């Protein structure tokens, strides 16, 4: 029950009954570096092997995640950018294959890679008053890898996908709720997490089976999964 707590420095995994809470810890931007991706993947692997029935991901501070760790990629962008994109896609794949429903309790900005990470969850609950969902890729001439693009396209209404990616629109919580990017808005971080836990609690009580849940999700997005697997395998892909 309470008390199962793993912390690897940049993120933690805590158990509440049959729900696991994955938390991006500290007042940082939670940017995706090899270290953070690796720790997150380890926690998700722990979740997959457990008998828990839901995963809620949330964050401390002002950022859910502000995207790739550009400090890390700066010394050698030609090799490090593809590397970290691949790591992020592996993380996303882990979430898409996880054998339980996933809820992102978004308590701050989710930008670029952070947006991708949020959209890789089954459900999204967001703070009303803080944080944007956006992708600034178009403003920095960054072409989305096809797998990432396919994920966003699979989860967003066509107009939202276009406005998000081709126009770089910044969605506040209220805008995001209006266009169906998130399922619910809450007053503050505590309420956002609580709502995610409440939704998860209701769903875990239903008699679904974990393997069937995972199988159903895979069969909903087969081409997406296949593309992500191809791109994120060693050998990977080339961003032009």
């Amino acid at each position: 029950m309470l008390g199962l707590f793993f912390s690897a420095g940049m993120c933690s995994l805590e158990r509440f009954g049959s729900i696991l809470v994955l938390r991006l810890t500290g007042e940082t931007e939670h940017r995706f570096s090899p270290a953070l991706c690796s720790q997150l993947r380890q926690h998700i692997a722990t979740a997959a092997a457990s008998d828990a029935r839901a995963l809620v991901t949330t964050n401390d501070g002002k950022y859910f995640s502000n995207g790739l760790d550009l400090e890390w990629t700066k010394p050698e962008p030609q090799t490090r950018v593809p590397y970290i994109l691949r790591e992020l896609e592996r993380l996303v794949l882990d979430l898409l294959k996880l054998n339980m429903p996933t809820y992102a309790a978004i308590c701050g900005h989710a930008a670029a890679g952070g947006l991708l990470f949020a959209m890789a969850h089954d459900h999204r609950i967001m703070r009303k008053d803080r944080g944007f969902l956006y992708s600034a890729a178009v403003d920095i001439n960054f072409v989305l890898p096809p797998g990432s693009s396919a994920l966003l396209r699979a989860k967003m209404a066509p107009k939202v996908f276009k406005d998000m990616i081709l126009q770089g629109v910044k969605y506040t919580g209220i805008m995001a709720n209006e266009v169906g990017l998130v399922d619910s808005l809450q007053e503050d971080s505590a309420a956002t997490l609580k709502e995610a836990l409440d939704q998860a609690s209701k769903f875990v009580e239903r008699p679904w089976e974990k393997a069937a849940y995972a199988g159903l999700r895979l069969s909903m997005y087969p081409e997406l999964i296949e593309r992500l697997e191809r791109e994120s395998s060693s050998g990977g892909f080339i961003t032009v």
Partner: protein
Amino acid sequence: MAQEEKEPYCRLERRGNFFVLTLIGDGEHRINPPLVDAILACLQTLRSLSSPSTCTALITTGHGKFFSNGLDLAFPSRDAVRRKFAELLSAYINLPMPTIAAVCGHAAAAGFILALAHDYVYMRKDRGFLYMSEIDVRILIPPGPMNIIRSKLTPRAFRDAVLCGIKHTAGMALEAGIVDSMHGNAESTREAAFSKAEELVARKWNPDFYREMRAAMYPEVFAAISKTLEDSDVSAMSKL
């Protein structure tokens, strides 16, 4: 030879310049080989009665509490049931005319898919759910049906229907964009469908062109259903 008169599974009627196919009786109209064969025979008749140069329209509706409660899981051969369902879907999506499902009762699982395989879905407001029960009964959804749901629902409604197994009332279905309209009771639902059929017939579309348009709009649906039929031919032959 004395034979008990069994109520037919369905009946095709001409009304003015369009047709109505009614699933007869107060049962669940579960999809199995005899029901499908009866419907296919009606659709064959329909094709022979319709003009090659100008579209008619077909309304599918049902008596009783159910539009259809899904596949007949009690039928001896699950393979035969699945194969027949694919044949049924193939017949509907290849009809060279607009199709309207007048849903006046529950449409669950394969029954929901059958409704979605129509060009328009009208639903009664006061009774009945649309429901993908697969998540709760731990069955996977095959590619043909999965492509139908995915092609007709927004990403969010798709997630809600498949991964959450939400039971949609007509109001919920209308808001989610799953049905085109809702009406007070069974009779008004059917009447509205009749009006729509007349409106569509008055457009004087070319039947072959109409079918080609539908196929061009939903290529993955057509491909997945054709493949199911080919594969089951192959596996049937390999059992000889």
